[in-house]
């Protein structure tokens, strides 16, 4: 039996600020618990060490404005690199599954990154997934975001991609940051139905989450038949988390992961550093390694403490029915949207960066092509805390783009570089060619990102 891969990178020398939830102490007690248990000595577990992600790995997912160096610190590169190490080990068949316990987290980071939002700068899962697709040829991937906050960054990155099924359950956006993740957010027309949001009422218990897992998430995975399942593993649904209001337990997390059986799990949020994280992380490792976790529980755990509201279960039944329906109609919806066309689907969006106080406006266009999931053009303008504005024009060509669309997008990039068009920076992200460029219109220079 292959071992479970474990990459533990607590970044003991990195914090957003000394008293911020994302501080050095966050994984201290997790370290104590894992190492006191002797987890790394078990034959069921193999420990891995992180490396630095390369600029190219970041550019495959993000348009970092003004540059990767300004957005991704060394800590971010090590965390992202940690997820890549787990990905390599999994793809090479060294491990049966892998868990990257890394920080800083990433699931609020979107395609265009002007700074930190929701404690995230770059998206570790998306960087890992695009690396796996590029290097090992994976295509159909499912991401289950189990963080209490809506994984709006990951959702946005895959909103246009029908080959990635993004499922997020989270505390209802009307009651918690980032205020999104409602059922009607179903994906852009070429990828409608492969974004599935499950807003949960505050105080939902183990029973409620496992209920929606069995009735919606597992059936979706069964039908989608992904080549790889990724758990974007937040730990803040816990009853003791200071930033949210749910009632999930370590036992519930173990059961969730046992049933979900993710191939790769990447740590996201979770800020009850002393009363939840050590136990949830251990529970998750044990579930992934196939170790009985019935002796694992929080010291104050009381199985009778939380009872699920029957009304909540009825509500979850309705969400499950609706979302299964949305998912099953996706091919028809997509075909209809492309047939009806204009050749471009377009929309606008406002994005707020809570940590860095940036307001960003985006205009997004996606080519509607009957032959492929085509390219996107994002025009972004960000107003920073002190009023300075940065503008970026971004061309994103997906890995499975048809050659006609790809040429069209590259031409559009070249034309934009020639004409300027008011953007400070113009980016090309050609995943098909693994070619990433950044044009600085002030210096009139183009660089290739390696």
């Amino acid at each position, binding site marked *: 039996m292959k071992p479970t891969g474990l990459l533990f990178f607590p970044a003991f020398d990195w914090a957003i600020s000394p008293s911020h939830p994302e501080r050095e102490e966050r994984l201290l007690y997790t370290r104590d*618990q894992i190492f006191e248990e*002797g987890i790394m000595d078990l034959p069921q577990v193999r420990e891995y060490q992180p490396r630095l992600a390369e600029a190219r790995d970041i550019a495959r997912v993000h348009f970092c404005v003004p540059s990767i160096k300004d957005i991704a610190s060394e800590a971010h590169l090590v965390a992202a690199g940690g997820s890549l190490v787990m990905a390599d080990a999994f793809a090479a068949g060294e491990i049966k599954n892998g868990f990257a316990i890394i920080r800083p987290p990433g699931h609020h980071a979107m395609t265009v990154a002007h700074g930190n939002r929701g404690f995230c700068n770059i998206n570790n899962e998306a960087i890992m997934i695009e690396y796996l697709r590029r290097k090992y040829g994976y295509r159909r991937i499912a991401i289950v975001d189990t963080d209490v906050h809506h994984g709006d960054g990951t959702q946005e990155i895959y909103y246009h991609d029908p080959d990635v099924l993004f499922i997020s359950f989270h505390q209802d956006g009307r009651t918690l940051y980032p205020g999104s993740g409602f059922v009607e957010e179903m994906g852009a027309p070429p990828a409608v139905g492969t974004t599935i949001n499950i807003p949960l009422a505050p105080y939902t218990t183990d029973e409620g989450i496992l209920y929606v897992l069995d009735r919606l998430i597992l059936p979706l995975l069964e039908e989608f038949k992904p080549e790889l399942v990724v758990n974007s593993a937040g730990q803040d649904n816990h009853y003791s988390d200071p930033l949210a209001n749910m009632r999930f337990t370590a036992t519930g997390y173990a059961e969730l992961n046992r049933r979900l059986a993710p191939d790769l799990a990447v740590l996201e949020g979770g800020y009850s550093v002393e009363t939840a994280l050590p*136990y949830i992380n251990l529970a998750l490792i044990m579930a992934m390694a196939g170790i009985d976790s019935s002796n*694992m529980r929080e010291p104050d755990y009381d199985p009778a403490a939380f009872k699920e509201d029957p009304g909540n279960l009825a509500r979850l039944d309705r969400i499950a029915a609706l979302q299964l329906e949305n998912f099953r109609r996706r091919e028809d919806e997509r075909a209809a949207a492309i047939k009806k066309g204009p050749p471009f689907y377009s929309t606008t969006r406002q994005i707020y960066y809570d940590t860095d106080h940036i307001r960003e406006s985006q205009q997004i266009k996606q080519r509607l092509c009957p032959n492929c999931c085509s390219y996107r053009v994002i025009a972004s303008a960000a107003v920073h805390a002190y009023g300075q504005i940065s503008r970026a024009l971004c061309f994103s060509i997906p890995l499975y783009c048809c050659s006609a669309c790809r040429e069209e997008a590259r031409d559009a990039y070249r034309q934009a570089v020639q004409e300027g068009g008011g953007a400070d920076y113009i980016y090309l992200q050609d995943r098909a060619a693994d070619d990433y460029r950044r044009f600085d219109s002030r210096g009139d220079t183009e660089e290739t990102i390696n």
Partner: protein
Amino acid sequence: MHIGIDVGGTSTDGVLLHRGELVQSVKKPSRQEDLAETILAVLDGLLEGRDAGAVRRLVISTTLVTNLLATQKGARTALILVPGRGLPFDFYRIAPDTYFLKGNIDFRGKVTEPVEEAEIERAVADIRARGIGRIAVAAKFSNRNRTVEQEIARAIKRLYPEATVVLGSETANRLNFPRRAVTAYYSAVTAPEWNGFADRIEEALHRRGLKAPVDILKADGGTMPLVLSRENPVETVFSGPAASAMGAVALSRRKENAVVIDIGGTTSDIALLIDGEPLHASGGALINGRLTHINALALRSLALGGDSAVKGESGRVEITAERFGPAACFGGPVATVSDAFACHRGLKLGEAERAREKIAAAAAAAGLEPGPFAAAVVEQALERLGALIQGMFREWENEPAYKVWEIVHRRRFRLDRLYGIGGAAELIVPLLADRLGVPYLVHRLAPVANALGAAVARPTLAVSLYADTQQKRYLVDREGIEGSIDNPEGFRLEEARKTAAQCLARLAAARGAAQYLNDTRVILAEQFNMIRGFSRVGKIFRVDVQIAPGLIDEFEGVAD
């Protein structure tokens, strides 16, 4: 005069140094069934015609504990565990007589579930009924709170006063409960035999009028006084390779990165020196397949030595793991690795003609000429040794790291020199050094490097301090030292360092190590702010300080 005695698997070496010169060395076959006798015979050989009273220090490195554990002939010992919450209890069935008790301590040292008196009583009654006289006790997170183990020890004392008890928190205090439990268990298992050995040595030395301090070499390449070894005999495990590595340190005395290769009859042992100091295994010593908290050198062994038989078979050349006797050139029955190296290098060694015949016979079986056959053996041996050494470098470079700084500044191993020890070193090491692209040294004293290493190794001592200013207390992993923090606001990393250093000084005094305190090193110093809500409620510190392995001040090196 300084004496070092190293007990090996087949023979025991002793050296006597006077004013930095080797004035006497003795070699005798090891009698595994009576190692004390062997040691005393070697000692008498060294002291012949000399005044025992002039001996300044005697260091013994012995395989007694290694053998006891390898043959599992130690005393029957019960293991009482309080594993608490986490992995299933089954994962900790370390000993045949393992008892599990309910109870739980958390990582901050808080007892969240007490142990039940009735459960302790039942376990102790059963141990007593089975006639098991030794008990090791270990609780998860006993490194953060010793009271649970102490409570059990008190109960044992009351219910079964004849039993001897070893506590996990007194043997090792780093994180890792299973390793702590194994260490406590092996300590209890080996103690009776070790104490018998220590009694005999002490008594015999007394009779000889040898009043000098007697130290025992540990797995980490340092020494401890014989009298203190009674508390933790298991630390003397694997002291043989430690003696060899310290021997290389003594012969080189350079602050270099080096490989020490000890090529014996059928095995090669490899250790690394980093800046002239032996590298320790990050996982602790591995005994009978179980990791422990015992500091031991990072060693790799390969079943390939000078006497390993070589054979040819249908075009293939094979170095076997078998030994049929000495090399053919020294009268052995078959061609060996040594013969192949001698033949390949054109050296006239022993009965060179006989060696050539044996090589030719093996070559014929492979369908090769003797020259190419010997070259192929040499190539294979160098390839395997080289790969093992490179693997050790990679492992050192990829040691677990948990800070951004450490990952960004990943270290690279840069090799400066190769040191050869052991019978076949002279034949093999020059070619191996050539392959690794570094200079080498096979010192004229290499054959007694192990005993020399024992003679000049200095004491080592490591102390790990854990402090929690919210709880206003600190714990040290030796002799149950703990204390309160009176001024938690003013207790910073500097104070934590000072406290650790003071504890080290206190312990060093009893170990004859006080003179090395000026070389105290801080191995690890970490601090964490504890934030609850948005304000700081305290700090957690961990500081590891140690007197690292090294050479005694009196030793100033031997001539090349």
